Every structure is written in C-alpha cells, then in structure tokens.
C-alpha cells in the first residue's frame, strides 16, 4: 500500500506540452480512474507515475520518496503496470510470461526460488487462469492474454497497480471480469490502483474517484457523481449525452444521445 503524490508536474514530448501543472494526491488504498478524451494526457500521466517518463518540471513522490531518486528496479518492486496490450514475438508459455513478473526480485545468475514459483502460482490462481499455465501466450484470445498480463503484474507483488486502458480491446464479459478482480484486490488487499479508462460507465461503476483530464489539465476530480455531470461531459468530450443514475448502483450512467434521429423501430 503506497500513496502517490503528483506535484506541479509538467510534461512535454518533442512536439508540445502534454501535461500542464498536474497536482494530485492519491492515498494508499484508493482506486482512482483517469478519464478524458483521446490525447488529454491519461497515458502520459500513467507513464509518469510508473517512472518510465520523467516530468519536465515538478515531481512525483511514491510514499514520500521522489521517483527520480529511485532506481528502475526499486520502482518495479512496488509498482506494476498493465498496458493496453503486450506483443511478445517469441513463443513463451503462460507460466513463463507470468514468471517475468518476478524479474525485479531476481539476482543475475540465480533462478527463481520456490517462493517465486509459489507467487507465480498464486497470481495464476488469483486471476483464475491456472489451467492455462502450459498454453502458449500467443495462442490465447485477447481477453485471456490480458488476464495473463494482469497475473504477471500481480506476480510483481505491487503496492501500486497502474492500468493504461487495460480493457479497451476486450469483450464486455472480460472487461467486467478484469475490473471486478482489480476492484476485489483493491478492497481486500488495499492495493492502490490508478487506471486510465476509456469507458465512462465502467469507470463510474468500478472506481471510487475519477480524475477528468482535458488538454493536459485536471478539469475535475471527485466521486463519479461529482465528476460525471451532463454539462461537463458535453464540454470536455463535445459529445451529446444524458446522465441518469444507474438503476441498481445509483452511480452516474451515461446515455449516448445521437445527433440525428435514428429510427430502428421498423415502423417506417
């Protein structure tokens, strides 16, 4: 369980400013969703939080210690990242891929210990893919692969889990399954989770706190009900929607309002 503090962070790629004065404090054990239009800086913020990108100005602190002071290895021992997808050009088995998650803890010439193998087995079990362990990673479906990557991240025993739109390529059953699992890890084990999310309804359902980014700035930060208002979505996404409370959970539920009248009743 760690907290993450983002202080006055600016970031730009070669061709322009991407993040502008971002300030966020994410408490240990929180589950925070990053939402916003394409290009608003969600992925960049996740990469900054993982330490693979460095802020141009400002700093990011992981439980009080600045990321720029920590080695990659020590960051990898507490922070794991699940990206949209990994392409692996060689024919690793599922077990081998999940075992990659132990790399931050291994010494150069030593193999995995029994404890490492046990952690890998636990991660497979937790994600519910133990029966896939001898299958080849590249033969799996997209949803199964993403579960393997999640298991790999969990084998890292992270205290902070960063998700970069981890479910965009998946069908709805896999999306729900993965989000429920992450939610359970957050609730039961206090795992801090920060996830960039595309689907606003899923974000509202599974995340306690949402941070809305617009053109590299924080436009809103709060509970789903506070952030996902009709006017704000219209303003930030330039999309025409209606927001109603979810019939069961009461969180905001976004209903897309087509600009043109689409009549599919078949009465014409």
């Amino acid at each position: 369980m760690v907290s993450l503090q983002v202080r006055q962070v600016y970031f730009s790629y070669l061709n322009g400013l991407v993040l502008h004065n971002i300030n966020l404090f994410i408490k240990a054990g929180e589950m925070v969703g990053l939402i916003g239009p394409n290009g608003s800086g969600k992925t960049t913020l996740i990469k900054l939080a993982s330490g693979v990108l460095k802020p141009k100005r400002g700093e990011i602190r992981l439980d009080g210690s600045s990321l720029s002071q920590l080695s990659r290895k020590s960051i990898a021992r507490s922070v794991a990242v699940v990206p949209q997808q990994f392409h692996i050009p060689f024919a690793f088995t599922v077990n081998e891929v999940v075992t990659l998650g132990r790399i931050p803890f291994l010494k150069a010439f030593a193999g995995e210990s029994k404890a490492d193998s046990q952690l890998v087995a636990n991660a497979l079990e937790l994600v519910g893919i133990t029966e896939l362990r001898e299958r080849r990673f590249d033969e799996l479906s997209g949803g199964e692969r993403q579960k393997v990557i999640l298991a790999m991240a969990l084998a890292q025993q992270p205290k902070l889990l960063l998700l970069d739109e981890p479910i965009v390529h998946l069908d709805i059953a896999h999306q729900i399954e993965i989000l429920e699992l992450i939610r359970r890890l957050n609730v039961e084990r206090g795992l801090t989770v920060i996830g960039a999310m595309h689907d606003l309804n899923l974000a509202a359902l599974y995340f306690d706190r949402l941070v809305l980014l617009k053109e590299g700035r924080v436009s809103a930060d709060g509970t789903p009900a506070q952030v996902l208002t009709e006017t704000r979505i219209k303003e930030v996404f330039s999309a025409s929607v209606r927001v109603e409370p979810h019939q069961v959970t009461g969180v905001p539920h976004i209903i897309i309002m087509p600009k043109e009248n689409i009549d599919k009743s078949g009465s014409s």
Partner: protein
Amino acid sequence: MLIKLRRRNRLVLVLLLLGGGLVVALFLANAFGAVNVPLPDILKMALNRLAGFDFPSTWRAVDETIIFQIRLPRVISGALVGAALATAGVLFQGLLRNPMADPYIIGTSAGAALGATVAMMLPVNLVFLGFGLVPMAAFGGALVTVILVYNLARVGGKTPIISMLLAGFVVSSLLAAVMMFLMSISGRLNLNIHSVYSFLMGNISVTSWGQLAVIAPLVIGGIIGARFFAFHLNAFSLGEEGAAYLGIEVEKDKIRILALGSLLTAAAVSISGLVGFVGLVVPHAVRLSLGPDHRLLLPASALAGGGFLIIADLVARIILAPVEIPVGVITAIIGAPFFLYLLRRTRREYAF
C-alpha cells in the same frame, strides 16, 4: 519428456547433452582431414598430454604434430566462432525482438569486410599478438561501424530499435558500396580479389595457439557475460516499455547488450570472415526445440553453435579434399534444411 523435468534438471541435462555433442564433434573433426588419424590414437594422445597418461605411441610423430599444431587450433577456432556467432545471434534477436536479426544486422559484417579489404590492399606487414593486419582491420571495422550506427540512431538520449535497424541498413549499404568500388578497381590497387571473396564467404583462418590465446578469452568471456543478461533479454520480449516496467534500465542495458554482441561478432569475423547462417539459424533452432527462455537459450546456443561450426568446417575440409570449400557455404547447405525441418516439426513456432 524434457518439458516434464524440473527447470533446473532440464537445464543441466540439455547442457550436458550439448556439451557432450561438442566434445564428440571435436574428436571427429580432429580425426579426419587430408591425413586421417584413427580416433583411439587421438584419444590416447589427448590422455597422454592432458591427463598424464603414458600410452606407447602407436602413431607417427608427424600425426601428433598435425593434430596438435594444425588441426586442433583450427577445430577449436571453429568452436569459438560458432559459439560466438550463435550467442551474438541470440543477443541481437532478443534485444531487437526480431527473429530475422543476425549478428551482422547492424553493420558488423559490412564494417569488417571493408576493414579487411582495405587491409589487404595495404603493403604493410604488421603483426600484433600473432594477428596480421587483415584480422585486426576486420575486428576494428566491425566495432567502429556499430559505434557509428548506434550514434547515428541516437536521438534525445534514446536509441530506438527501429532507427538502429535503419541506420544499420544504410551504413552497411554504404560500406558495401565502397568495398565493391575497391574490388572493381582491384587491378590498380594490388588487391587480390580471391582473398576478398574468401573473407566474404567465411573461412576459418587461425593457424596458431598464440592467436587462440587472444580470441578464446574474448569469446568465452563474452559468452559468460551474455548469460548475465538472460533476465534482461526475457524482459525485452515485452518491448522496451514492458522491460522498463520490470525494472530494466532500458537504454543502459541496450548499449551493454549491443556492445557484448558486437564484440563477440567482431572476434568471430576477425578469424573466420563472414560465416553466415550460424548466428541466425542456431538461435532459432535452439529456441524452437527448447523454448525462448534466455537462461537456457544462451548457453545452449553457444554449445550448439560451436558443435555445428566444427562439423560444418570438417565437411568443408574433407568433402573435396585436398580442396577446401568455404565453411560459409557448408553452414548454409546444412543449416537451411535442418531449420526447415525444425520449423515444420515443432509446435513451438513463432508468433510473428
């Protein structure tokens, strides 16, 4: 059967089998050639020299000289070249995440070839550590080219893989053009075209133990050093970003792996010219039969590469004896069908 064994036992078993194969290849390659010496005699000679045995010599003194002064250094160089190229192949394929990569992909071959060609033209007879100008120029040419390619591809503190491949291709083409230009005017330059061809096709040219004393530590050190990066290469399978998420210092380790692979390649080409196929096909074959985990892949490829090149060189020496065929021709002729067989037989193929 291999899959069922525990990882460590499997590793030991595979390495023992391959190591045994290498030793058998070594003995076979010593027995045959322009003069055939019976295997039991070679075994006795070896035991006399290495283990302090005292078998009466049932062989001619000249045979012993042939074995220990001519054939053995050559066979051992073959093993070193094969092991170095196969290891470099694993390093480059793993780092570049490109199954089509080989040790020559970022310009080592073109650099070495141009270096060697220029050295052949120069009327200088320089000898350093037992090496003439040509192997030294090949070694230097390979390394200088890689350094050039790396720096050309470097932008803003990073060296993207794709830029490196492109820069490697462009620089290789340029150097090859210069070399072909020199060849085209060879008459005016006192350049022996046949020597250039011999270098380009690959020919193991070690003649003395003194040269081996320089090359062997370099290659063996490089192979042991490569094993240090097994985890890093496994992590690189996820791409550079994925490797970084697993705690790898991507840019630092990239330059270390490149340096190691280039050094191994340069050492190999300096004594053998451009032997093709070994660095491409051996890592593939080993990966297809044993899986992609670099902890096993690296040492297994080194042993398999060494054994393979010993056999290829033996065939090159005896098939049209006393004429020697370039060993590079044999590596391709043996390597290609074997590789095809593996590709079709195995179920652990690649995910392109």
